[in-house]
């Protein structure tokens, strides 16, 4: 904090008022509401609600459907995080290594960042389309009869591909700026000590990138869990029946299509706990194991 500060009985509150008002009305109120209604069973016709304790939670955690969606979400998150991080890192390392054309590569690679997930999903849908999709034709060459939107595995495959594609630029930007933050003197010293470029990367560059990688890990997990909603929605088009969906999509389906206020709220609270654990994990556990300079 600052050594010198203003003091005034009213001004700081006045400056904070707009932000706090918005946060109270649109963050705390709904969040408290979510926790509250997760303990109630809402009458589907709107005639009041009755307190059911942890029944909503029990119902969710015992449901085989919810478990399989949770399982899919976990695998989906792991795949998207792994591939988008590693491809982003690969491209960043290469863009950092070349001199000629480096800014052109950079411009092109980051531009996809600005594309909204559902727009990415729409373009992906076309590439995986039954009639016009080149990917479907390509897969057919190997005897893979791809049916997006009908076959569980195929849809999941397309969702992972599109989600990774959309997230690569973000990881690329951060890895590149992390790489460019490594002092030239460190690189030169490493180059003198070790001739193998690959070993230099593993033993010197990668540990120095660890804070960036760690930060990106958490961001990518959050992205896979929440921001992919648009991609999932475009790909399954409200017909979740046989298709893989993520937990957030399930909250949406149960709340808005199924009108199950209590169940949807309980799922929200479960997700809140997941995010909360993730954040604590970020601050407590992982940060200690990365090197800072």
């Amino acid at each position, binding site marked *: *904090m*600052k*050594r*010198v*500060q*203003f*003091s*005034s009985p009213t001004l*700081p*509150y006045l*400056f904070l008022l*707009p*932000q*706090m008002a*918005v*946060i109270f*009305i*649109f*963050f705390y*109120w709904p*969040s408290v*509401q*979510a926790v509250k209604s997760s303990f109630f069973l809402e009458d589907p016709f709107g005639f009041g609600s009755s307190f059911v304790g942890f029944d909503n939670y029990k119902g969710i955690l015992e449901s085989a459907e919810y478990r399989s969606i949770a399982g899919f979400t976990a695998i989906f998150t792991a795949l998207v995080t792994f591939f988008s991080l590693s491809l982003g890192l*690969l*491209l960043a390392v*290469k863009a950092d*290594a070349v001199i000629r054309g480096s800014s052109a*590569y950079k411009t092109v*690679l*980051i*531009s*996809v960042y*600005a*594309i*909204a997930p*559902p*727009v990415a999903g*729409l*373009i992906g849908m*076309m*590439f995986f389309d039954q*009639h*016009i*999709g080149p990917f479907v034709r390509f897969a057919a060459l190997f005897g893979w009869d791809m049916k997006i939107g009908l076959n569980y595995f195929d849809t999941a495959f397309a969702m992972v591909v599109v989600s990774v*594609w959309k997230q*690569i630029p973000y990881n690329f*930007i*951060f890895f590149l700026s992390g790489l460019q933050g490594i002092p030239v003197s460190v*690189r030169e010293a490493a180059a003198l000590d070790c001739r193998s470029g690959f070993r230099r990367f593993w033993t010197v560059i990668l540990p120095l990138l660890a804070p960036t990688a760690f*930060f990106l890990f958490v961001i990518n997990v959050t992205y896979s869990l*929440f921001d992919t*909603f648009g991609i999932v*929605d475009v790909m399954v*088009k409200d017909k979740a029946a046989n298709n893989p969906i993520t937990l*957030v999509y399930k909250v*949406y389906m149960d709340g808005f299509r199924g009108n199950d206020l209590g169940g949807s709220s309980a799922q929200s609270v479960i*997700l*809140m706990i997941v*995010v*909360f654990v993730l954040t604590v994990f970020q601050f407590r556990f992982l940060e200690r194991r990365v090197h800072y300079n």
Partner: protein
Amino acid sequence: MYRLKITDHIILLLGVFVMMAPVVVAFFTSTHEAAEIHRNGLTLRWGNHFVETYNAVLNREGGFTGQVTGMRMLMNSLILGIGFAVGKIVLSMLAAYAIVYFRFRLGTLFFWMIFTTLLLPLEVRILPSYEVMHQLHLINTYTGLIVPLLASATGTFFFRQFFKSIPDELLEAARIDGAGPIKFFFDVIVPLSKTMVAAIFIIMFVYGWNQYLWPMLMTNDESFYTLVRGIKQILLVWVGAQIPDYNEAFAIAILAMLPPVIIVVVFQRWFIKGLTESDK
């Protein structure tokens, strides 16, 4: 230590191809007629129906009410993007200024209350948020579209970080000259923050423009649809169509991505600066 390495360029070119090809193909395909696309698949050739398709998407009155045009959706997207970015900057600059430059009792408490919003993304509290908006009669309003999205701390943290890096001497000098908190804010802090404001504006504009879930819940009146929201409508019409309007779907996708992509590319340096410095 630098040599021209062919493999590096090959990998980068492959990366560029993978990232850009879908977008380029989408654009070229959008210039063909739907039936042609249905017959021949995606293409990299120019199709002579560019004006026709884009004119139809932008100006034809469509939707269930027969009143919403692509232009209208474009305008709504702009309102959402700009409104969100401006709102975010104003709210978070004021709040961060109070937290960094004032000594007051509840300062820490407020800081933590703002910090907590980072823990829960909007997606996990959609249903209760919708209920609250319903009670406040904010469904199908621009206020309902924009203001709830402002309830997160990202911008506040960005400005807090930046204000802390401003040398203390400035404040000391200002106080010796007799400047009060409001004068100091407008005469020193605001001019100093120009680059930061530009950077965060770009990030927030893109974020606001690209919103999908929230506009989907908040608007069922088509005159409030944004371009990104409109994609859902296109897909709903598709179900059951003989030959889907591939060309128009691609055209909408191109229109929906063009403004944010242009802004990110043109203001690249500010954008990267804002992104990498605010999130850390």
